């Protein structure tokens, strides 16, 4: 196997292409975390008293919580006192896109985000979050015609306090877990979406998150509410500059689906994964949860996870409404020294609820990739059904794939199926491609795209193309 090793070592990894840093004038909060930090953020955002109280309560709770260590991850402890919790571009309150800091615009241009209205013919409405602040939300007026609210969460706090007050923390309670509690205390900004009754959102809604400032954490928060019989497809993308130190990203996403409503939430996560030696990279500790409150509602999570040094993420569904449906489609790639512990929770509490889990792990280099999933069927959840498919693909023999499925079935009428496979892209397969004139990188890309097809097919078309490229890029230099 020394041949493999040589090969692995000889080919250098593809450099992270999104690793540039922008020179933007920013207001950054003093480093460290205390009650004052929380007050500072709240004041910066001119928040109402109730929200400050909510944050402070969360901060008190967080202080009493221990950092979790049950996940299959090994990373240096986070020093919460060495991070700045808030950074915002100096000039703000934009009346039109023309007022946007040209540097910020250049940043988003580099990321290929269509900020300008004319580019939005592509039919994607974008909210862009740079470090802590939502910079601009496009296509707002068109959406408003249908009564759709798509804005930054800070704006929603002022413009639609009744909705925010009602639903903020309703799906992920303040004390849910260590990182979500921290987020409640110091969350900076994020997106807010409300789709009124009976409205089918006419375009993809999208948010791009980017961490730019040094020594900052990003704590964004997204809240999406789909009222009765509405539909929305939402996509988030994430990148960060290349840095030697680790940066913390602890987001919370809450989804609420009412009767017959459907939310499709897709993520293409490409935070800086650290370099080839495992230096730097984002710690991605994210809590994402959707509540199918109404009967016949549906929430579908699709994620393509290629970035971050450490990922800790379990997009989940609470299937409360009868006949509600939860789905989780995931491709998680780890290369070099990346570690991912990701999966989902499907909590069946309503009758005749259904869930489907399709998880495709891809490990390369010296990385570790774990799937962790819980399917719980409560006593009263008559006729619940779940199907789980957890596949692992290994490139080379120095990486690891692990599957931790948990089942808690309290109702005998439940029908739960689980399938798991592990396969390896070995020398034999690669040689077959090469003998036909196809180089190793292309071979891996073809195999991986085929393997991940079921998940990629869930993405909106234009993002599926992007995600495929991303998969190939993140695995370059990993074959052996």
């Amino acid at each position, binding site marked *: 196997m020394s*041949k493999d090793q040589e090969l692995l070592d000889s080919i250098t990894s593809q450099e992270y292409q999104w690793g540039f840093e922008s020179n933007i004038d920013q207001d950054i909060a003093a480093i460290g975390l205390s009650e004052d930090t929380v007050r500072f953020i709240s004041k910066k955002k001119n928040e109402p008293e109730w929200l400050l109280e909510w944050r402070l309560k969360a901060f008190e709770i967080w202080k009493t919580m221990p950092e979790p260590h049950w996940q299959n991850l090994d990373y240096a402890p986070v020093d919460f006192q060495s991070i700045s919790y808030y950074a915002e571009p100096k000039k703000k309150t934009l009346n039109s896109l023309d007022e946007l800091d040209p540097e910020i615009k250049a940043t988003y241009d580099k990321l290929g985000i269509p900020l300008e209205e004319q580019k939005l013919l592509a039919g994607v409405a974008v909210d862009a979050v740079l470090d802590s602040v939502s910079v601009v939300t496009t296509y707002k007026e068109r959406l408003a015609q249908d009564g759709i609210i798509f804005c930054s969460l800070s704006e929603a706090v002022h413009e639609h306090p009744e909705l925010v007050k009602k639903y903020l923390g309703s799906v992920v309670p303040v004390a849910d877990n260590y990182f979500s509690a921290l987020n409640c205390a110091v969350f900076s900004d994020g997106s807010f979406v409300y789709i009124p009754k009976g409205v089918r959102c006419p375009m993809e809604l999208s948010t791009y998150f980017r961490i730019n400032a040094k020594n900052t954490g990003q704590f964004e928060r997204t809240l999406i509410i789909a009222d009765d019989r509405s539909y929305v497809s939402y996509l988030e993308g994430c990148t960060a500059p290349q840095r030697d130190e680790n940066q913390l990203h602890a987001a919370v996403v809450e989804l609420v689906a009412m009767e017959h409503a459907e939310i499709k939430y897709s993520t293409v996560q490409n935070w800086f994964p650290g370099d080839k030696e495992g230096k730097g990279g984002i710690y991605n500790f994210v809590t994402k949860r959707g509540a199918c409150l109404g009967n016949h509602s549906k929430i579908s999570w699709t994620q393509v996870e290629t970035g971050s040094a450490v990922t800790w993420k379990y997009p989940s569904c609470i299937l409360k409404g009868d006949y509600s449906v939860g789905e989780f489609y995931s491709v998680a790639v780890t290369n070099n020294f990346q570690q991912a512990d990701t999966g989902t929770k499907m909590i069946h509490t309503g009758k005749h609820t259904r869930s489907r889990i399709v998880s495709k792990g891809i490990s390369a280099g010296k990385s570790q990739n774990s799937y962790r999933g819980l399917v719980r069927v409560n006593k009263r959840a008559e006729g619940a059904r779940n199907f789980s498919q957890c596949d692992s693909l290994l490139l080379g023999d120095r990486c690891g794939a692990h599957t931790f499925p948990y089942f808690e079935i309290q109702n005998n009428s439940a029908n739960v199926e689980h399938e798991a496979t592990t396969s390896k892209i070995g020398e034999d397969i690669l*040689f*077959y491609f*090469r003998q*036909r*004139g*196809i180089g190793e990188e292309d071979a891996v890309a073809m195999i991986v*795209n*085929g393997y991940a097809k079921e998940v990629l097919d869930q993405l909106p078309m234009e993002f599926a193309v992007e995600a495929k490229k991303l998969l190939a890029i993140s695995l370059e230099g990993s074959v052996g």
Partner: protein
Amino acid sequence: MLQIKNLHAQIEGKPILKGINLEINAGTVHAIMGPNGSGKSTLSSVIAGREEYEVTEGEIWFNGVNILELEPEERAREGLFLAFQYPIEIPGVSNANFIKMAVNEVRKHKGLESLSATDFLKLMREKAALVGLKDDFLKRSVNAGFSGGEKKRNEIFQLAMLDPKLSILDETDSGLDIDALRTVAEGVNALKNSENAFLVITHYQRLLDYIVPDVVHVLYDGRIVETGDKDLALKLEDQGYDWVIEKHKQEA
């Protein structure tokens, strides 16, 4: 077209090829026969560039290029094709996508544009028909769940698509029923011309009834010990390898 000079190769320190000399010219068909384990597949793997095998001595020239210095994919793009004795299954990658990528790589190497989708489909249909594979196989994953015979037909289909200069067929006849054998052999004959060459590895005369060799070699214990015309194959069919082994035992 191909010159192999005093080729020695080993795997995990064990010498397998012990001084192969072989010259193949354009427009000819060579057959290699020989007992199990004599090194036939090893020879084809070394020519194709499998990295497990270490070449300890000798040279391989292919159309004036020292291919021992080339990566396997570069050799393939130069026009070297190996129909595998045991074609591998590739789940999740369709035959159509696979061969499209391969054809485009070869075309790119020749400085040609990629074929248009319609031209490509036409070509695929034509070549699939040539080896008796139905259209629906193009959508299926490469070799996944294929019968032994279908896998071998698929190898020849790929050969037909890529139109290589030198094709090495490693026991393409094994596992084929009589009809399939004829189809595959006719396919090869249809592809044969004055510009290309074939190296056919087989244990059986019956393939050579269809693909008539210009030269027949016997490989024994890592060396080519006999070379003759097609009658040599007939003699082997008739008498087996005992006489060859007897004659060359001392050298081994």
